[in-house]
């Protein structure tokens, strides 16, 4: 409704009836960036639609990423390494998934911001100037404004500093770089209203604060040491250290007990302990991107980078500098995190490219020298005996490396065209005769809503479809992809998982007019609401009001989730089941199978002939993928 970009916009079309403060629940970086580009271009009289800006924002930023990767790798190793790394990140599938045209997502610009911050940080550590550390703080601020992943950044930089301290590499350059980055960066990050006071209150940020304190102490100790003799210094040092440690632990304990330091939030726990979120926070675990990564997807998204990565690490270790320590830390940590969550593959991809770039460039420059450098051969006659067919082996090696690089290019192109470049709102499948079948049911349903329901109608659906309904159907929705309020999502989950009567109470309480479900049983579209249903049950049962919803009620006695005759009666009579399978029992879906044969679960459904009491079918799309129901009014003549 209101298009101005300011933090005070209040959205009353989503999260009915709670509403949502847009500025307080999103990272504004993406919107601010696109609005800025839009205004600047129009100010220059380059007329462009804001939608086009949004569509092309991700590709634009991915090209910025390529440039900044070059500079980063150049700082770490050499211009050659920079070039290879830049080429690699330009096509790496793990990053292309977020940078194709039309992907308008926080991550699209966040990866650029992250690499930019790293670049500035390396510069700051190398030069030790206020200029570069302030630039790093500004880049960090941009990162904070665009993605929640900034927490990774504010932990890895202090870790770098800590490692430098432990390895005895702490210097005035590091002191200046980190102290100014931390202070300016923290103050700036608190200006983002979604972040607010988190940088000084939650435990994810405490590491950075602790290292900041250590920096001061370390610098002070160095100063004192330069003025005292060794014995005096040792005595003083011991006394002070023990006092400070005791006081620090005590303060932390008191603050944590008083709740001044927020307990470790779920998202972060799930990074350290992959089973934490699954056991405790269903809404985090339910997102497929938060699932642990399969080994195959490492290869799928990174291909040759997976085995060039250790080579790159070797080269970094072989020439240990302050900045190489940073990239080693970054690589090792992000590979761990990427193993925990698929989503963090995105954080891993750039460092993989940089390290592989270093590796490939170092290897090539080593062997290229050997191919036909006849002069060197003659000069270093003494060593010649050690090398057997030096030139030939070098040539062979270069060839093999070239083959690898060509394979990498082919793989990336293939993955991109197969997996990352089709729209998710229009589905396609192959028919029996090999022809292409297009399922345009989502748009069909959303346009139906747009044209056939009252403008103030409230639509209830699972949160995955919230943004789409808002944008394409222009109707008020209860929950959407900005999952800022678990209780409300849980309420919707309870409605879906309850029997019709109980669901009706919830729906009336929330003024629901229409309910929308996604059903794939007819077409075999497997990410439908029945397959997501267990998450609705878990999320629904995770709050106080939903304690009557227990996950095991929806399983068979043998502990299986099935929708056929063996399925649990609770499941076969809940609202979601009834909405998905209403009238489905009379439909023949596949030759040689009984009516009501579900092509996703590959079973004949268990509860076929039922009527809906509190809902009436309003619309079902061509392939039954989207089904919309209208909530009936109370009966006119009483019960």
């Amino acid at each position, binding site marked *: 409704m209101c298009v101005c970009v300011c933090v005070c916009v209040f959205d009353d079309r989503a999260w009915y009836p709670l509403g949502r*403060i847009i500025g307080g629940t999103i990272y504004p970086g993406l919107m601010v960036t696109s609005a800025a580009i839009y205004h600047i271009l129009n100010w220059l009289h380059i007329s462009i639609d804001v939608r086009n800006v949004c569509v092309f924002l991700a590709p634009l930023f991915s090209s910025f990423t390529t440039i900044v990767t070059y500079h980063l790798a150049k700082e770490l190793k050499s211009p050659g390494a920079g070039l290879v790394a830049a080429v690699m990140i330009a096509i790496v599938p793990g990053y292309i998934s977020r940078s194709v045209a039309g992907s308008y997502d926080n991550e699209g610009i966040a990866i650029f911001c992250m690499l930019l911050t790293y670049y500035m940080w390396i510069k700051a550590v190398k030069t030790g100037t206020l200029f570069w550390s302030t630039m790093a703080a500004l880049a960090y601020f941009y990162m904070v404004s665009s993605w929640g992943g900034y927490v990774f950044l504010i932990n890895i930089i202090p870790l770098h500093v800590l490692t430098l301290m432990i390895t005895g590499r702490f210097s005035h350059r590091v002191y200046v770089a980190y102290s100014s980055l931390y202070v300016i960066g923290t103050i700036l990050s608190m200006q983002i209203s979604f972040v607010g006071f988190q940088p000084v209150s939650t435990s994810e940020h405490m590491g950075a604060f602790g290292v900041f304190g250590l920096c001061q102490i370390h610098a002070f100790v160095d100063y004192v040491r330069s003025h005292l003799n060794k014995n005096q210094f040792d005595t003083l040092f011991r006394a002070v250290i023990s006092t400070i440690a005791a006081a620090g632990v005590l303060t932390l304990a008191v603050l944590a007990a008083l709740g001044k330091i927020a307990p470790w939030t779920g998202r972060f726990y799930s990074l350290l302990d992959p089973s934490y979120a699954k056991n405790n926070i269903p809404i985090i675990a339910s997102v497929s991107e938060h699932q642990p990564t399969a080994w195959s997807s490492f290869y799928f998204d990174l291909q040759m980078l997976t085995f060039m990565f250790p080579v790159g690490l070797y080269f970094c270790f072989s020439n240990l500098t302050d900045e190489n320590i940073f990239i080693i830390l970054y690589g090792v940590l992000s590979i761990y995190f990427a193993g925990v969550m698929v989503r963090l593959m995105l954080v891993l991809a750039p460092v993989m490219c940089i390290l592989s770039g270093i590796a490939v460039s170092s290897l090539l420059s080593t062997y290229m020298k050997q191919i036909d450098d006849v002069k060197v051969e003659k000069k270093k006659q003494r060593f010649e005996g050690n090398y057997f067919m030096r030139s030939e082996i070098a040539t062979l090696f270069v060839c093999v490396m070239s083959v690898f690089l060509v394979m990498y290019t082919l793989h990336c192109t293939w993955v991109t065209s197969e997996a990352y470049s089709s729209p998710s709102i229009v589905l396609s499948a192959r028919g029996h005769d090999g022809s292409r079948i297009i399922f345009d049911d989502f748009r069909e349903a959303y346009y139906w809503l747009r044209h056939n329901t009252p403008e103030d109608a409230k639509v209830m659906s699972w949160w995955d479809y919230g943004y789409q309904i808002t944008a394409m159907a222009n109707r008020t929705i209860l929950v959407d992809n900005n999952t800022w309020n678990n209780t409300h999502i849980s309420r919707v989950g309870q409605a879906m998982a309850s029997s019709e009567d109980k669901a009706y109470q919830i729906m009336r309480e929330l003024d629901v007019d229409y309910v929308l479900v996604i059903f794939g049983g007819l077409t075999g579209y497997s990410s439908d609401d029945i397959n997501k249903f267990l998450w609705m049950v878990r999320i629904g049962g995770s709050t106080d009001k939903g304690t009557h919803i227990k996950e095991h009620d929806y399983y068979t006695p043998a502990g299986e989730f099935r929708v056929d005759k063996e399925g649990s009666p609770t499941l076969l009579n809940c609202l979601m089941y009834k909405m998905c399978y209403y009238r489905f029992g009379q439909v023949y879906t596949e030759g040689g199978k009984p009516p009501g044969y579900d092509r996703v679960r590959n079973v004949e459904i268990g509860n076929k002939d039922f009527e809906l009491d509190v809902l009436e079918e309003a619309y079902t799309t061509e392939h039954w993928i989207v089904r919309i129901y209208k909530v009936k009014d109370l009966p006119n*003549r009483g*019960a």
Partner: protein
Amino acid sequence: MLRLLVLSLCVAATVATNTLVLVDTLATRETHSIFLKSLQERGHEVSVKAADDPSLQLSRYGEYLYQNLVILAPGVEEFGGALSVETIVEFVDGGGNVLVAGSRDAADLIRELVTEVGVEMDEEGAAVIDHLHYDANDDGQHTLIAAPSSGLIESDVMVGPSEGTPILYRGTGLITDAENPLVLPVLRAPSTSYCYNPTHAITDYPHATGQNMLLVAALQARNNARVVVSGSLEFFSDAFIMASVQTPQGSFHERSGNGKVVEALSRWVFKEEGVLRVVSIDHHLEGEKIPPAAYTIKQDVEYKIKVERLVAGSWKPFNTTDLQMEFVRIDPFVRLTMTPNSEGVFSVTFMVPDVYGVYQFKVEYNRVGFTRLFNTTQVSVRPFTHLEYERFIECAYPYYASAISMMVGVFFFSLVFLHHKDPAPKSKAE
């Protein structure tokens, strides 16, 4: 002015209510003449037809020909024309009012019809019997009940002011659906009564006994359509209206209470009484005229609602002290009683709660006998924008002080640092 008056008279004339009366035999027209005549006197276009008349129809081209339907035909086996139980139920759902009278021998059709409105007639042949509350004219079976007026529902709008005269009744007993919250007990049977076939020996426990049994029931549907069901056709008859009552306890009344009750009840069921409407709603910030696009938390808001009541055919300002307004977001955050003025405008001023969201001004007024007054208006309540917070907070003064002192300190420090010069070191020679 005069033209306007004429015009409004014309309008009043054209909105005469059409009432269809269905009878078993046309003799009913004579036996119930007082009731029918009172309808005509009140401006109803009464058309009396036999219930099996093949030309019967309630609607034509999707519009109802009648606003009210009276079924004084307990014996009808099948309705004539386009009429059926379904069409009558549809008629109720479409806003029409129905008055149904049954009897001991009411046909299945009538029984089916009344179950649709949440009332059940006792089985065929059963009659209400009371050995303590019967009239002297009874034939010995004690089925001519003189029901004490204490059984009447406490609502002047529905049954008129109570006068204490017993009400004559002969017919079957009614049982209501306990789960239907919309059914009203207009006249309860005396506690000593029961319902059974008077010619049979009692072999099993009667279905309906005492106060659980109703003689007259009413239903006000959610669309405000009204239905009255009586188990006795004679309840509305001239004979009962004109009769005197002599109870076994010895009290004598010149006239039965039927006349008054029938009059009041028919006024109620045909929506001549107890009808309210919302004329206009107005909400705005206190001291302003038009509502803003969205309210901000903690603002003072004034809400006004104008309610009118139908009195003798014209709308008059409604006056009550118990009309409440709720400000609801799932739960009511504010619930206040509104104060009326002489023009029927109820108003209240309150502060929007300190919780943002999408709220509804909700007025819900359900009183026995009155139509359901229900009105919601949706408004958004947004939080403060960054400009609207307090600029300086008293308790933050120490922080302001520390910030300013820091700035001053740094300023002087840099001044000193830049312009201070150590005295030149003494030369080694010295």
